[in-house]
Structures are given as structure tokens and as C-alpha cells.
């Protein structure tokens, strides 16, 4: 029940409870709140804020390197 793992917060590593993200695997990104991972980050959805902008034709001047 108390599955936990080490999570790297941009250099600061903390032990985090993983009970609520049973499918989380090593290398994945998780959202952490008060010591608990409450969601895994869906990398395929992570670009949609830029894709939405592209569809509106408002991202023309964005350089390739700035995108996630």
C-alpha cells in the first residue's frame, strides 16, 4: 500500500508516496502534492497548448528550439 519512489524536482530529490499512481514507471513525470504523486504527466497531451496555438496560426514566429 505504501509504494514510494524517488522523484527529482529539477535537482532536488525527494522520496514520494506513489500509492495513487499505481501505473507510474521509472522515468515518467508525476505531479506531486504534499508528498504524494496524484497524477502522471501525459507527454502526448503536453504539447497541445502549442498545437492549439499553431492551429490558430499564431505560432509562426516561435522558434523550433523553444518548443517542448
Amino acid at each position, binding site marked *: 500500500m505504501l509504494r514510494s519512489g524517488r522523484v527529482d524536482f529539477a535537482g532536488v530529490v525527494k522520496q514520494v508516496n506513489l500509492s495513487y499512481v499505481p501505473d507510474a514507471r521509472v522515468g515518467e513525470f508525476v505531479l506531486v502534492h504534499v508528498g504524494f504523486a496524484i497524477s502522471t504527466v501525459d507527454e502526448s497531451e503536453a504539447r497541445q497548448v502549442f498545437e492549439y496555438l499553431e492551429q490558430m496560426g499564431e505560432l509562426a514566429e*516561435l522558434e523550433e528550439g523553444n518548443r517542448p
Partner: protein
Amino acid sequence: MKFIDEYRDPEAAAGYARALRRITTRPWTLMEVCGGQTHAIVKFGVDELLPPEVTLVHGPGCPVCVTPLELIEKAIEIAAMPHVIFCSFGDMLRVPGDTHDLLTVKARGGDVRIVYSPLDAVALARANPQSEVVFFAVGFETTAPANAMAVFQASRLGLTNFSMLVSHVLVPPAMEAILSSPRSRVQGFLAAGHVCTVMGYTEYESLVEKYHVPIVVTGFEPLDILQGVYMCVKQLEEGRAVVENQYARAVRRTGNLPAQELVSKVFRVVPRKWRGIGEIPQSGLALAPAYAGFDAELRFGVAGHSADEPAECCSGQIMQGLLKPHQCPAFGARCTPEHPLGATMVSSEGSCAAYYRYRRLQLPVMDRTNEKVVARGV
């Protein structure tokens, strides 16, 4: 940093600002529900990128801010008892009670400790069997799974010296209370993304149907908020009202099911008083009967406190979107983070604290001596 810096890109933000200007033809008032969103908006100046027709008002989504005064008084009473180790998240320690705060209790010798996670309090209870360890469980749906797990673990470990002072609140009933108020100005909501990671967004579907107000589940970075505003204004301009999910990288429609399961096992839904707003039906969580043995209010017999709000604090109106922080006559003068009148000036999610921290040099404040607005700072 992955999944953070990208969402602060100024070019993309300018793109959303242009797109918003293109589609906005009428004035609209939107409310961002969560205090974390308020801080991002004020810190990054997101509101300054919006067309003049679009106004953001700041919602009640700051757990520290809405915790009622009588609960702070109960916390202060328990924390001052001998043999008690009182644990809390840091924000709560400086919230003013009737006469003093938890930090004062600590200064007078009370064992008051800041913890990072409720599980730290459980660990303290195991390590200190001679003491009573009490955790101040304040929060929204985002924090409820962690607190539920702490109680569940304490129960499994057979700990008899661990208890919780519970002041949990729920977001959708508060949104409904705002919508059903005749004074409400809110025409669309940016719902709190992190609450939805736990609860999903099916609860909002009935709200949208009943009040015909668009609700967009929104993240916390500047681009998230700009896209959330865009999606909400687009619906309003087109005369539509549906639930949309801007924050799909973290939020799924049904939320986090294992978390919901433990929360509904450990807690039950109850009416709850919100500081500055009043009682809202079915808007809080208390321990379920099977876990009532962990209820600090029962264990320490502090069930009967009542306390009055300072008359000067208008945080209730601010959290319902009726006033902005700097429109309060006490803002930045008699109410500062060092000497707060109310919790919205204390918490890292409080909107008064956000305006004080990021905007006070640009905002006009009310000058009490000659009753006129004077410019402050540079």
C-alpha cells in the same frame, strides 16, 4: 525544467493575447477558482495581456483562507496543551485567530511543528508514543487523498496517539454557491486543475447545465491560464457553455480513482463553514464514523468554539469575486503579510498576499486621512 519553463514562453503568450483580442467583442468576467492560479496571474502579469473587455476575478480556492476562525481557535487550544505535538503545513501558523496565532503558541513553548506531508505526522506519532500528535488537516480535494492515507495508515498501525483536526472543503459546492448568489458577476470559470487531477470533472457537467456557464479545467502556468481564458471567452462569444479540459496533460475526466476510493472510505461529506463566506451545504469533509477515533475535536473536547471575524477584513467579498484586494481600505496599510487582518493576506495562495507581493508598488491605495486615492511608491 521539463513541463514548466515551456509554459512560460513569451512568444506563445503573445500569440494567445493576439488570438484573444481577435475573438473578444464584449465584456466578460471570469473567475479563476484556485489561489495558485491567482498567484501565477499576478506574478506573471497574465491579466495585463488580456483585452480590456476581459476581467479576471479571484476565487475562494485557498484552503488556508477559508478555514473558519473557530477552527483556528480550536487548533490554538489543542496546540497549547501539554504532551501535544501539533503539526501543520507552514501557512496555517501565521493565520490570526481571535487574539493570537499558532506561531505565538510555539513562541510560548507549545510544541508546534511544520510538516511537509501528513505522513510525517504519522511518523512523529510512531516515534513519540508518549505524546499526542495532532495534524491540522486543511485543504481541498487535492490534499484529501494524502490526509486520508495518513489516517488509514495510523489505523493500520494501531496508533492511539495520532489524531486530526479536520477542516476539509470541496470546490464544486463553493462554485455553485457563487453562481447562485444574486450578486454574482461570474460568467465563466477556470476550474482548478489540481483539484481535477483527483476528482476529474464530471461534477461540473451538472453545474454547466444548470447555470449555463462555461467551465474550463485549467493548469497553473501562464500559457495554461491564457489558453483557459481563450477557451472560456470563445465559448461565451459563441453562446455555448460546456466543460472543457485545458489541462489534459495532468487531468483525466474521471480523475484519480484509487485516491477517490480512499477519500470516500476515510471521510464523509458534511456541511462546512467557509471563513468570510458562511456555511455552504455539503461542502466539506469530516472523518467517517469508522475513523471517528482519530477526530481531534472529539479527543480533546474542543467542539464548542465560536468566534467573530474582524469587521475590517473583507476577504469574504474578495473570495466571491465582488472586490479586488487593493479595493479594501486596509490593504497594504493596516493589513500586511507581517500584520494580517485575515487569512487571504497570509497564505501563499491568498489573493491579498499575491497583490501585496507583486503589485503593491503599482496600485493606488486608499488614504484614510483625507479619503482620497493616492499613488504609492514609484
